[in-house]
């Protein structure tokens, strides 16, 4: 299909130029490379046929090196953003691989005995890796790893605010957009460096440093009631330092101490993006569809000159937002101390134990959120937030070998963490006398005749039409202060006991029991807010200590009590497993976990109502879960391997059925036939075989089928204007104390078939051929059904598309019929990933030109295809087809 980038409201990204021109060039280059690949082998036919290199000797070292240099040409058609999201291999020269190995022949090298350095992907691929390993026998051992990950993600996969819908019945939809203003392009650089000193001595030291640096731009939108594009300049860096020492005080006993320190730094800077949503107020744009209907109650409708009917912004004298920005600086320090013990001092008893303590401190300073919206309105939120995460952890593992065949093990784990946090903000709002078209909410609090408190340095950044904020000093102003506290904590106790039986090498088995208790503590104050006015007065001096106890100082308001809300969940799990080896070539293993949780204490509907204490932590946390796994591997002869496995997870939290017919809460009506609560299963079946008869031939084949199903009860509110019968129930139903909401059932299914075949063939000594094919095919549905009748919410028989004639719309008007498959309540949501084919093919040739020199060619094909019928009509599919050709020379010496 044609490239549809012209639909995008943002310009093409650097390096993502139009494909039309490059395609011709790429084809020429492809032909050239193909000819080169055919000619070079014949030129080299008379060369030495010894393809192995033994490297060279540098002093006391045996040295081997290789370097693979080449280039890639990419030719793509279809949705470029989708290709970049899934593959992102672009054209250009590359250092495809490099290796250096130095080994001291007599273990008496100078600075090191062994050195190994390797890398791949350098020069522009999205993933680059460099590894370095150096060791000197008794002195040190160093491992370094550097990784770079370029992460492109088109959020159009989830939603596209440009897809609009008219509030009319029958449903009328616009042609869809392929690209959206939602996008991420970040690059993560990661480094891990670990040094062990005196690795063979009774006392050894470990030093480590890790760095994670993630930077880039995130394009998004802000909504309600209007929308505009934003860009987030995202910068995150984490530095982690580690020091450890292992001491061996007794035989077969090691005590370790580790000290870690992590410093995280996140800087956010948001602003309106250069290619922001075209908002009214810019006369050059004229009539523009933002893609959203204006918000209904409780928002007040803005002046009709701003929003005309059908959700269009039609006036040039009105705007949603002129200026907006956000910034903060988040710093987190996480010091952690850990003490560990491992001992086999007693012959029959293995002991491992560890304990750790951590006190993380987060400080978000310089929070600044200035914005200017509507006619003559401006506000500025500023403040600071602080949070701690105090963690204590201990575990103890004991294994007692009763006899050669029997053993019993016990693993106890305790984890206690709590996050006390505080937030203090001030919001200054200034508004002009012309407040009739205010689009923001603070003004509902009223206004006073004070001077505008927003500092001039901030106010000057709030651009807008001249004169709109005509007289700030005379305008209304308001200052709101807020101080809040939260506390979240968890205590987990887990104990697993297992009895193992290992009578023969052909058979072993275990049974066990795990008890886990989860205690959750959530406390918090409501926002302690005050309408301050000017001059500002002291905010409530509320503090919270590490255990969640609130202390109130001199406050403007009465002390706010923190009500402790403690919930307890007890889980019991039966464990079992067996391994059977009828012959050494055949192995069968199976294990099972059967979990059952008690009724959650403190999780009722409402809290404390014992008749509804049936929820787990969340609706999707299962109170009953069964996991079954079985697998087998059979090797005969040695070069043939057959394998198969089954993995089944069945989960349910059946609060729905339990609550059916309760008149008090009426979450579900008597007679509901689909009161499941939340049930799901994930069943995976895998078979495969590999043939590896010789170095000249190999084959690898596999197939996996995955079946996912979710049945979940929920409630939702629907707009009756947009739905056709029989969606709005004839008889009024209601969810728990929410009349007007509709009890519905999410009936979700996703079936995925994954298959692959890889072939390797070496017909003659110098030539290696390989080829392969991978397929992932998914299908399913995302149905929302009325609980009482079972019919789907969105059953639209006919609809029409429109073309308003604006330059924004490029689609063609039409009409059609669509079924309910996969629609869900909102047909504008891209559903492509639920119904796709994803193909990958490759074929490669390696020709050993002469000793140490190999010519390599690789062709790859990527094909993403969205099969969903309704998606193809409502929204354009995001298919792409891409060929890549990689030619390289590998020189080993």
């Amino acid at each position: 299909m044609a490239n549809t980038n012209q639909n995008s409201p943002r310009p093409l990204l650097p390096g993502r130029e139009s494909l039309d021109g490059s395609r011709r060039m790429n084809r020429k280059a492809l032909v050239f490379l193909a000819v080169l690949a055919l000619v070079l082998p014949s030129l080299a036919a008379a060369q030495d046929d010894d393809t192995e290199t033994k490297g060279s000797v540098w002093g006391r070292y045996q040295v081997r090196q290789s370097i693979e240099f080449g280039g890639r040409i990419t030719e793509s058609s279809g949705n470029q953003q989708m290709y970049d999201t899934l593959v992102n291999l672009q054209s250009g020269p590359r250092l495809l691989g490099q290796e250096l190995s130095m080994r001291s022949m007599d273990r008496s090298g100078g600075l090191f005995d062994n050195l190994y350095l390797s890398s791949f992907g350098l020069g522009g691929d999205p993933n680059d890796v460099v590894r370095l390993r150096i060791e000197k026998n008794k002195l040190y051992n160093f491992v370094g790893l550097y990784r770079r990950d370029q992460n492109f993600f088109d959020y159009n996969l989830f939603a596209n605010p440009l897809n609009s819908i008219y509030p009319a019945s029958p449903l009328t939809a616009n042609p869809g957009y392929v690209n959206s203003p939602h996008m991420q392009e970040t690059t993560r650089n990661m480094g891990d460096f670990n040094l062990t000193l005196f690795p063979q001595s009774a006392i050894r030291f470990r030093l480590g440093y890790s760095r994670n640096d993630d930077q880039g731009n995130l394009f998004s939108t802000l909504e309600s009631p209007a929308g505009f594009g934003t860009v987030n300049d995202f910068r995150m860096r984490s530095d982690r330092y580690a020091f450890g020492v292992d001491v061996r005080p007794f035989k077969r006993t090691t005590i370790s101490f580790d000290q870690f320190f992590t410093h995280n730094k996140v800087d956010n800077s948001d602003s309106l993006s250069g290619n922001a949503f075209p908002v009214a107020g810019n006369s050059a744009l004229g009539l523009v569809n933002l893609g959203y209907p204006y918000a209904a109650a409780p928002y007040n409708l803005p002046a009709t000159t701003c929003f005309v009917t059908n959700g269009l912004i039609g006036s040039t004298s009105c705007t949603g937002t002129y200026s907006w920005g956000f910034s903060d600086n988040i710093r987190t320090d996480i010091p952690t101390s850990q003490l560990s013990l491992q001992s086999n001092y007693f012959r029959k008893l293995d002991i491992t134990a560890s304990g750790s303590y951590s006190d993380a401190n987060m400080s978000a300073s310089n929070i600044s959120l200035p914005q200017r919206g509507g006619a003559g309105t401006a506000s500025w939120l500023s403040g600071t937030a602080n949070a701690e995460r105090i963690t204590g952890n201990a575990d103890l593992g004991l294994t007692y070998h009763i006899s050669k065949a029997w053993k019993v093990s016990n693993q106890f784990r305790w984890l206690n963490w709590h996050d006390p946090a505080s937030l203090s903000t001030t919001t200054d709002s200034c508004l002009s006398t012309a407040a009739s078209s205010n689009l923001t909410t603070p003004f509902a609090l009223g206004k006073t005749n004070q001077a505008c408190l927003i500092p001039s340095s901030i106010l000057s950044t709030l651009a807008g039409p001249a004169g709109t904020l005509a007289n700030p000093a005379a305008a209304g102003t308001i200052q709101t202060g807020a101080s809040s506290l939260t506390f979240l904590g968890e205590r987990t106790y887990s104990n697993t006991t297992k009895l193992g039986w290992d009578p023969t090498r052909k058979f072993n088995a275990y049974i066990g029991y795990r008890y886990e208790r989860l205690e959750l503590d959530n406390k918090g104050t409501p926002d302690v807010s005050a309408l301050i006015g000017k001059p500002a007065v002291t905010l409530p001096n509320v503090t919270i200590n590490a255990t969640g106890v609130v202390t109130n100082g001199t406050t403007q308001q009465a002390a706010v009590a923190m009500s402790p809300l403690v919930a307890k969940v007890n889980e019991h799990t039966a464990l079992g497993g067996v391994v059977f080896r009828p012959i050494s070539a055949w192995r069968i293993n199976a294990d099972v976990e059967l979990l059952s949780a008690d009724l959650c204490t403190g999780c009722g509907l409402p809290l404390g109502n014992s008749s509804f204490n049936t929820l787990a932590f969340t609706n999707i946390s299962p109170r009953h879960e069964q996991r079954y796994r079985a697998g087998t591997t059979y090797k005969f002869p040695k070069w043939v391997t057959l394998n198969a496995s089954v993995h089944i997870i069945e989960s349910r939290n059946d609060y729905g059925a339990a609550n059916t017919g309760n008149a008090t809460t009426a979450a579900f009506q008597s007679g509901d036939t689909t009161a499941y609560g939340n049930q799901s299963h994930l069943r995976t079946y895998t078979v495969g075989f590999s043939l590896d008869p010789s170095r000249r031939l190999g084959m690898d084949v596999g197939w996996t089928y995955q079946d996912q199903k979710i049945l979940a009860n929920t409630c939702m509110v629907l707009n009756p204007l947009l739905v056709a019968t029989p969606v709005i129930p004839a008889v009024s139903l209601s969810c728990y104390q929410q009349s007007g909401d509709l009890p519905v059932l999410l009936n979700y299914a996703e079936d995925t078939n994954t298959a692959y075949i890889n072939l390797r063939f070496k017909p003659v000594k110098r030539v290696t051929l390989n080829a392969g094919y991978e397929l992932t095919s998914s299908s399913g549905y995302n149905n929302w059904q009325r609980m009482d009748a079972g019919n789907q919410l969105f059953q639209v028989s006919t609809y029409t598309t429109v073309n308003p004639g604006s330059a924004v719309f490029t689609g063609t008007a039409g009409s059609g019929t669509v079924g309910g498959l996969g629609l869900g309540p909102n047909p504008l949501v891209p559903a492509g990933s639920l119904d796709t084919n994803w193909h990958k093919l490759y074929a490669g040739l390696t020709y050993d030109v002469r000793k140490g020199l190999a010519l390599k060619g690789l062709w790859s094909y990527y094909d993403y295809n969205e099969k969903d019928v309704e998606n193809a009509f409502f929204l354009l599919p995001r298919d792409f087809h891409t060929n890549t050709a990689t030619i390289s020379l590998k020189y080993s010496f």
Partner: protein
Amino acid sequence: MRHFLKPTFRWAVLIGVLLLAAATMMAAKRDSDAKKAGPADQKTAQADPSQYVGSDTCKGCHDEAGKSIEAGPHFRIGTSKKIRGEEVHGCESCHGAGAAHVEGGGDKSKIFNFKGVKPEEITKRCMTCHESSPEQRDFMRSTHNENGVTCTTCHSVHHSTREYQLVKAQTPLCFSCHAEQKADFQKPFRHRVDEGLIQCGDCHNAHGTTVGRQLRATADQNFVCFKCHTDKRGPFFYEHEPVKVEGCSYCHTPHGSTNPRLLNVARINSLCLQCHTNMGGRNAAGSTNPGTGSIHQQNRYNQSCIICHSNIHGSNTSSLLFQP
């Protein structure tokens, strides 16, 4: 069903079954022979010092095996007398004292042979030295050990020149048993394991950990995902409690998925609405599961909850996890 009734197919199945049975019987006989030749006396690594003959004696017959040890990281057992305070005896550190084996003219039953013994016996041999390593100290309680996976399943001290003496490169080695995960990593949205950016060992410790799925954890016992996805780690003033309590896998499929952002379902709202209903739900942490309220008309706009609630993992400014 008609396919099954075809005579050709029936014959093919019958022949296949017979071949499988024949192969099984042949392999069983080979096992039986191997067992007869197996070690009658499984000596432990600790023995009377006079029973050690030294590595040079071993190399007299097992020259290739000796060279392979000298070329790999286990050369240390031949050059040191003690490692981490424990005595080592070259080849006999692993195979046990060899005097009886030598005196018996190479009698295989007089020395520890790693072939044909119970997996846990192999494990114990290796753990004699490796038990003190922070990476390996939990192996005895690991899922791998419980399922009969021992050290020599993945490592080969005599035949491998790879890092950590693995029998294959790490990723294909793990996939050789975990074929289900191999399929996950070829899905359109996946962690870049096939591309070589990360490896199984970055998130899992094959030698066991104290938490499920042999998962690693951050130093402060947080989820391993936060090692790379640091900005989601917090702590935040407004936490999304399930992120902290239940973990990432309640919403994401970590290996690979057909759904964007490795989500468990294809549509964001179908995930969020399972908990955030208007049923007045209250979660176990005591706070309410905020319902969708009357303004979130699911058939109108709100294509994706995270367009507005974009700080879904936690926020310092918005209790509704808005951006920002």
